[in-house]
């Protein structure tokens, strides 16, 4: 932890932006550069910055859930997204899609791969947080 006023002030502004950007990266990933892994790295960087500026205890309080648990929930979500298909009689990890306003320019497709990518996001983010917070506390 560094007690630098400049860093603290900048962090306050930047962490929110970085996290928003990471969600943006996560959601656009299917069509443009980005995706769960890259987005998690961005968010991890944001939290790392937060931890360096304010100390790991503040970060732990802010995220509320233990980072290892976040990682395991991510893994679970990723696995669950693959298990939806067998329930409908298709092979494991077949992508299932639900399409809203089909055929129109504003068509939105939501599918199990999106949830898989969110699972990847949380698995990677949880792991990074686990490491950074533990190292910072040590």
């Amino acid at each position, binding site marked *: 932890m560094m007690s630098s006023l400049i860093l603290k002030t900048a962090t306050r502004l930047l962490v929110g932006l970085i996290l928003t950007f990471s969600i943006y990266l996560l959601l656009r990933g299917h069509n443009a550069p*980005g995706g769960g892994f890259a987005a998690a790295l961005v968010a991890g960087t944001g939290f790392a910055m937060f931890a360096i500026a304010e100390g790991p205890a503040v970060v732990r309080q802010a995220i509320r859930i233990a980072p290892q648990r976040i990682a395991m929930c991510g893994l679970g979500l990723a696995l669950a997204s693959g298990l939806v298909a067998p329930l409908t009689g298709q092979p494991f990890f077949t992508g299932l899609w639900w*399409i809203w306003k089909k055929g129109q320019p504003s068509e939105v497709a939501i599918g199990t791969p999106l949830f*898989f990518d969110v699972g990847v996001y949380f698995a990677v983010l949880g792991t990074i947080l686990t*490491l950074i917070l533990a190292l910072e506390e040590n």
Partner: protein
Amino acid sequence: MVADNAKPSIIGWVSSIIPLGLFGALLYLVPQVTVGHVFRIQLDWIPSLGVALSMAIDGLSLLFALIICCVGFFVTLYAADYLPKKAAAGKFFVYLHGFLLAMLGLVMADNILALFVFWELTTIISYLLIGFECELETARQNARQALLVTGAGGLALLIGFLLLGSITNTYDLSRITLQAGVIKTDPLYGVVLTMVFIGAFTKSAQMPFHFWLPNAMTAPTPISAFLHSATMVKAGIYLLARLHPILGGTPAWMGTLVIIGGITALVGSVLAMRASDLKRILAFTTIMALGILTMFLGGKTTPALTAAMTFLMVHSLYKSCLFLVVGIIDHQTGTRQIDHIGGLLKSMPVTALAAATAALSMAGFPLFFGFIGKEIMYKGALTEDVFPGFATTAALLANALMTAVAGILIVKPFLGPEKKTRLIPREAPWTMWLGPVFMGSLGVIFGIVPDWIGHWLIRPAVRAFHPSMEDIQLKLFHGINEPLLLSAATLSLGALLYLLRQPLRQTIDYVLKQIPIRFEHLYTGGLEGIVKIARMQTRILQNGSLHRYLSIIIGSVILGVGLPFVYSYIPLDFGRYPHPSLFAWLLGGIIVVAVVAVVATKMRLLAICSLGVVGAGIAMLFLINGAPDVALTQLLVETLTVIIVSLVLLRLPRLDPRKAVFSAGKTWSGILAIAMGALITALILAVNQTDLERSLTDFFEANSYIAAHGRNIVNVILVDFRSLDTLGEITVVALAGLACYGLIQKRKVE
């Protein structure tokens, strides 16, 4: 173990319905199986590998299955009262019934790979049960010994099965049986036979693998009664019987089984004379019984095989009964040392009665089932195709010793003066004596009307694996003939040995001391050797220095990948590539400068940041070459690496500025790094020289949007087309994170 404060386990009582129900269902099949009907069930399991969960119930399977369920039922009921720690009862009964089902699967499987899976399951559950009292060091050691010995045998058996499958092109037992002639003339026959023998001998505790069985007696007594006398150790016997029509009848089969079985029977019965712990005595007599069974399965005449199947039943009845009796004695008196107990007849009359019937059956007195078993045994031994003299002598001696041991087992604990024990002996609850009494009475009933059991169970069992032409009648009295005379000789010799037991024990002790080699010591020696090698290897490869680890990992990659690469010499063609742009040159220059800075600097922060510059430079190279996704990920990984590495490295002491830039260690690292870099560069150049196989790329390009609703092919591959790979990767990431967390926490504690 205090009997008074322990309440019986409800789980045990309720779950005894499982073996009882199965027993009833199996009894229902008996009439049809007796007339030669085979029940079959088939479920596809791994059809692409020819593995099917196919079950077949013929006479042989049925005989084993009935024994399993019958003993299983009484053992469950018994264990409900016996278990000292009710807290662990749930675990205990799960193992017990899991074993029961696995064992039933084993004797009913009609596919050798399915049979192997059940075989290994019984090994594993046996391991868990031997080590059930896992806070005892000896229990853990003995459990591991049984697991390693029987597990190694299981692996040998798998080799044998796979070879059988490759010879016959099927894993179905019934289809393999049809090709028995082909197998016996195949050049691999000897190997198959050896492997199957190793599997069967380890499981059924034949010489020289017999040592694990007495040690397995650390299991709770009901388990010893069930697994290590009546069922699991008979799996090897079942296997030999099952494979008899496929592999049997050759001189190698007959010779090996008769010799090994005969020696095992003798060794087992001699060692039983010497032991003083009741359970160990029973364990050695079990080894004797298994030896006898193996010896008779070596034959191919109907009397020999009938003897095996009859003795199988005889032994299961009297041995599980005696084990349960010993358990009762242990439970009610607090000891099972034969010299510490006596005169229990007065306090435990029902148990004594059960024990007496079982012991008389074991000794082979007329009117008991054991007598029938012995008669047919001598008839079988006299008609063996190989070594009939040896077989008869071995059977005679072993049986005489059994008679003496039966005497010791019954006279010492129950008759004579009462001795003071830790607990005041009194009769066990009915759930505990019910099993011994039932099995003891069966021994009497079958002894008086043997024809009945012979017709319904034993003859169908023999017919299942042997096209027996003659009908063997199990009868109480066949007239004065050789077997009857041998029986009489056995009883007299047994009585003599009983009277001479003291000098006999001393002689055995003396002789054993003269033998320098113990098979068990070979086992422990081998185990210690493995540990030594592991220690040495850890000392060399994993001494705790990160520098050493990385050197070894990178060095082995360079050797393992580099040597074949150099060997298969591919001329590299640099002319294929366009000249890089000025921007690329500039990036290259920055990267080189940063690398020099990393190596030369004395400041850690500068080194870390320079390393970050190297990574960022490479990310830029990806970007200008049209891989934005890779560039993005590389840049982010690089950023995080800098953060994490600085969190760790900045805590270390400052580098000594007076030290030379190039130490020996650094030079070595430099050489490794340059070699690795050169190797990767050369590999990439070589790969680019071949034409890429486009079909996958085309598929992804064509289907990315249509099938997976995504325009970013990289991401679509990651989360859709190849999502199983990604799942594996994130699992690795998360587990590695947890492992690192554990290491950091451990350091904090220390």
